[in-house]
C-alpha cells in the first residue's frame, strides 16, 4: 500500500504536520496487553467493589433482575456495531426497534409521542424546560424540591448558562408530597413550566391532577418526571402532564456506577415539533411496503444548526433497545406483577419502621434514624454485608437523620428483617398505615 502511495513509511503520511506540533516523546502508557491480561485487570478492579452485599439503595438507580434475553439481543453484532440509522434501507432493524420503543413509552406514560431517547433522566429535565419555554414563549421554570437533587442540579447548570430563572417550591412536611400552597404562591404568568417527579425522590406518589389544575390555570405546562420506570406498571400515568420525562434504568440496565442509562421525553401531539432529539416515523418504501426512517430532522442540529431544538446527536440507542426487549419480555401482565412485587416488598419492610411521611409510596420511603445517625446505622449494617439506604441530610438538611430506603423484587425478606432489626423501628401497626393511605388515596381521587 505504501508503494501505491509512493511513500517510504507511514510517517511520511503526516510529515506535513508542522514540526513544532509533532509529538516528541512516546506516550507514557504501558505497552499493549493481551486479552487475557485485560480480563484479569478488570476482574481485579471489580473485586474491589461491593459484591455479595444486599442493598437498600435506590434514589434513581434500581437493582432489578435483568432477563438474560436483554443481553442476548444487544449482543447481536448487527445491533451492537451499527451507527445511527441514517441509511434506512439497511437499518430497518434498528429503526423498527426504536419505533417500538417510542410506542411503548407512549403506552407507559399515556402521552401521544416519545422520542428515540435522551442521555438519561437528568439531562431530560433541562431539555423539557427548554421545550416548554419554546412552546409557551415564557422563561420561568418552577421545580419541586421533591425532584431528584441531582436532576435539579443539572437543570440549574443548563439554566445558568442560558440565563434562565429557575425557582423551587417545597414539599408537605406531613405527606412528603408537593406543597400545593407553596406552588400556588410561586407560580405566575411568567412560568413556562412546573416540574414535579412521581414517585418523587422520597418514593411518594404525587397528586398529579391537583398539580396539573394549578399549573394549567396559570397557562404553564406541567412536566412530570419519573426515576423508577417499574412504578408505571401499576401507577396511573400522568395523563394530565404536557411533557413526561424519565429514566429507564430500571428496565434491564445494570446500575453500572451511574451509566450508561437512557432517558425518555414524551409529550402531546401538539408539541411534536418542539421535541429534542431523534424521532423515527413510519413510511413506505418505493414498493409500497411499510418501512421506517428518521424523521422531522428539521428540529435537529445537523439541519438547523444554532436554531435546533437541542444539540443532542448521539443518544442512548442500544440502552433503549435493552429496555425495549425488557418491556417485550415482561409485557402487559408481567410489568404489572413485577410492580406489585416491588410494592409488596417495600410495604412489608415499611410496616416495621417509623416512616417520615404519610403519603402513598411505591418501592421507596423515608425512615427516621431516631436517636442514631444515618451513618452510624449504615456502618453497623455494612458489618452484616448490607448496604443500607441513602442518608438524606446531605441533600435535605432539614430531614436530619432520615434515610431513603428502597426495596425491589430482588430484595430478600431476611435482609429486610435484618435491616428492620438494626433500625429498632417502632413498628406502625399495619392497619393504621393502610387506612392513612386510603385517606390520601381518597383525597386525590
Amino acid at each position, binding site marked *: 500500500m505504501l508503494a501505491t502511495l509512493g511513500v517510504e513509511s507511514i510517517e511520511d503520511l503526516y510529515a506535513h504536520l508542522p514540526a513544532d506540533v509533532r509529538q516528541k516523546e512516546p506516550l507514557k502508557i504501558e505497552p499493549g496487553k493481551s486479552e487475557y491480561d485485560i480480563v484479569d485487570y*478488570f476482574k481485579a478492579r471489580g473485586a474491589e*467493589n461491593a459484591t455479595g452485599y444486599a442493598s437498600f439503595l435506590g434514589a434513581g*438507580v434500581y437493582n432489578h433482575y435483568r432477563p438474560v434475553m436483554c443481553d442476548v439481543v444487544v449482543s447481536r453484532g448487527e445491533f451492537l456495531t451499527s451507527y445511527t440509522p441514517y441509511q434506512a434501507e439497511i437499518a430497518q432493524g434498528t429503526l423498527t426497534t426504536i419505533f417500538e420503543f417510542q410506542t411503548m413509552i407512549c403506552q407507559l406514560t399515556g402521552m401521544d409521542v416519545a422520542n428515540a431517547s435522551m442521555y438519561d433522566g437528568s439531562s431530560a429535565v433541562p431539555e423539557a424546560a427548554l421545550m416548554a419555554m419554546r412552546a409557551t414563549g415564557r422563561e420561568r421554570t418552577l421545580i419541586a424540591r421533591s425532584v431528584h437533587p441531582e436532576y435539579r442540579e443539572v437543570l440549574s447548570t443548563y439554566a445558568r448558562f442560558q440565563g434562565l430563572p429557575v425557582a423551587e417550591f417545597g414539599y408537605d412536611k406531613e405527606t412528603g408530597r408537593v406543597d400545593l400552597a407553596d406552588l400556588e404562591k410561586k407560580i405566575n404568568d411568567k412560568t413556562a413550566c412546573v416540574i414535579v417527579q412521581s414517585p418523587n425522590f422520597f418514593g411518594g406518589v404525587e397528586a398529579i391532577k391537583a398539580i396539573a389544575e394549578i399549573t394549567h390555570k396559570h397557562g404553564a405546562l406541567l412536566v412530570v418526571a419519573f426515576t423508577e420506570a417499574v412504578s408505571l406498571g401499576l401507577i396511573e400515568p400522568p395523563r394530565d402532564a404536557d411533557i413526561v420525562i424519565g429514566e429507564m434504568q430500571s428496565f434491564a440496565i445494570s446500575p453500572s456506577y451511574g451509566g450508561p442509562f437512557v432517558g425518555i421525553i414524551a409529550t402531546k401531539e401538539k408539541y411534536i415539533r418542539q421535541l429534542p432529539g431523534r424521532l423515527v416515523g413510519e413510511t413506505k418504501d418505493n414498493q409500497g411496503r411499510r418501512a421506517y426512517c428518521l424523521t422531522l430532522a428539521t428540529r435537529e*442540529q445537523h439541519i438547523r444548526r444554532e436554531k435546533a431544538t437541542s444539540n443532542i446527536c448521539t443518544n442512548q440507542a442500544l440502552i433503549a433497545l435493552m429496555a425495549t426487549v425488557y418491556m417485550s419480555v415482561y409485557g402487559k401482565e408481567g410489568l404489572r406483577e413485577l410492580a406489585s412485587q416491588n410494592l409488596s416488598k417495600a410495604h412489608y419492610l415499611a410496616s416495621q419502621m417509623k416512616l417520615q411521611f404519610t403519603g402513598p409510596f411505591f418501592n421507596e420511603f423515608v425512615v427516621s434514624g431516631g436517636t442514631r445517625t444515618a451513618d452510624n446505622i449504615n456502618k453497623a449494617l455494612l458489618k452484616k454485608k448490607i448496604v443500607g439506604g441513602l442518608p438524606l441530610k446531605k441533600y435535605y438538611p432539614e430531614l436530619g437523620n432520615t434515610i431513603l430506603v428502597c426495596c425491589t423484587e430482588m430484595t430478600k425478606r431476611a435482609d429486610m428483617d435484618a435491616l428492620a432489626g438494626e433500625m429498632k423501628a417502632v413498628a406502625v401497626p399495619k392497619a393504621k398505615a393502610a387506612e392513612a393511605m386510603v385517606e390520601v388515596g381518597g383525597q386525590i381521587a
Partner: protein
Amino acid sequence: MIRKVRSHISQNESLLFEMSSPGKKGYQLPDLDVPSVDPIEALGAANTRAEIEDFPEVSEVEVIRHFTRLSTWNYAIDLGLYPLGSCTMKYNPRVNELVARTEGLAWAHPYQPESLSQGVMEVMATLERVLAEITGMDAVTLQPAAGAHGEMTGIMLVRALLESRGNPRKKIIIPDSAHGTNPATAAMTGYQVANLKSNERGMVDVEALAAMVDEDTAALMVTNPNTVGVFEENIAKVAQVLHDKGALMYMDGANMNALVGITRPGDFGVDVMHLNLHKTFSTPHGGGGPGSGAVAVKKHLEPFLPKPRLVRVKDAWSWNYKLPRSIGRVKSFYGNFGVLVRALAYIMAHGGDGLPRATGDALLNANYIRKGLEPYYDLAYNAPSMHEAVFSDHRQTAKGVHTGDIAKRLIDYGFHPYTVSFPLIVHGAMMIEPTETESKPELDLFIDAMISIAKEIEIDPQLVLTAPHSTRTTKVDEVMAARKPILRWRREATASKAAD
C-alpha cells in the same frame, strides 16, 4: 462487475403489538416472599392504573425471534466496511463487552460507599490520566454523555472562566465546515454564532479569523483535523490570534483518531476539547449510542470542571464535592461508566506503542482510498488527507447523479455508504473514513465498487438513481414520513401491516 454482493433481504416482520395475544408472557417472577399488598389499598384508586393499554403480550421465543430477525435487516461493522466519515466506525473488540459486564463493575451502585467503590473509581482515575496523556491536556472530566454533551460542557467552562475574568463575552466563532452540534452548542450556552468562511484549501483562514476576533469573542470552535480530513497547518498561529485577544480555542476532538500518538492538542494551543470515546476509542455505536464525551482542559479551566471530581485522600479515591467554582453537574452521577470501561480496555490493548500504529494505519487506509478514487471523483480539496478522504459529486452531477444516489448504489455493492452531504462547504460531499481496522482486500473491494459506480453513471445513470436494488427494503420515502408523521403504532393503524 459486482465482486461483492450482500443482500439485506429478510423476512417480513410484524411489530410486537401485532403479534400480541391476551395473556401471553415471556417471563416468570420468583415467588413473592412477603404478604402481597393490594395496590388500591396502598396507593389509592386514583393512583392505580387499570392496565397498560396495548402493551405487548408475547412469548419468550417470539421475543428472541422478533429481535433476531430484525437484527438481520441491519448493516454493521461486524458485517463489513462502514466508512461513515467523521464517525470512526472501527472494529469493536468483543473482550470490551465482556469486561464491561464484570459483576463488581456492572452492578456497582453510584451511591454505594466509597470504601466499596475503589475499583470503579480506580478505573475512572486511570482513564482520566491516560486521556490527559494522549491529548496533552492537564485535566479531564468523564461526566458528559456524548460528543455534543462534551461540547456544551466545554463551552460552559469557557464561559465560566471568562465570567470569572469579569466578562463572559458574546460570540463563538465557528468555521462554516463545522459539525452541526458546534453552533447548536454555542446557542445552548447563551452565545451568538459568528460564521468563519474556510479558505480555498478547506482550512481556517487566519487573516479572516484575525479580522473577526475581538473583545466580544469568547472562543473559536475548531475541528482538527477538520471535517474535510485536513490537519489545520496554522493551528498554532490560530491559537496565537485567539489568545492575544483573550479568547480561547475549543477543539472538537471527533477526529482525534487521526492524531493519537503523533501530535497532542495540548501542544498546539488548545484550551479545551472533547473526545468521542465511542469513535476514537472504539466503544460500540449501538445504533446511535451510548457514547461518552470526555472533556480535557488546561490548568486555567480545571477549577470550573463539573463536580464531583476524583481526589486521592490518604491512599483511597474519594469524590470531592467542595468545588465552589465548578459549573456544577451536566449529568447525574459520574458519566457513562460502562462506556469508560470499554475505552480503557481498548487503550490497554493497544498500549503506548500500539496507539500511534493504529493512527498510522488509519491514515494509510484513508490515503489509499483517496489515491484509488482520485481519477474518478473530484477531491474536495487537494490538501493532504489525514484519516478521511472527502470528495465532491461535482463531476457526477453533470449526469444528474448526486452524492446521495451514489451512496444508495454503494449498498448494492455490499457496503454501508460514506457520510453524505457533510461538510456543507463541499458540493455534494462524499466523506469517506475507513479506519485502521480494515484490511487491504476490503478497501480494494470498496474502491472497485466506487469505480464501478462511476462507470455506471457514465453509461446508465438511471441504474444509480433508482438504487438500492438488492435490499429487502427499497428506497424509503422520507418526505412522506415527514409530511404526516406517524411516530407510534396505534391499534387502528394496522392497515399497512407488513405481513400482508
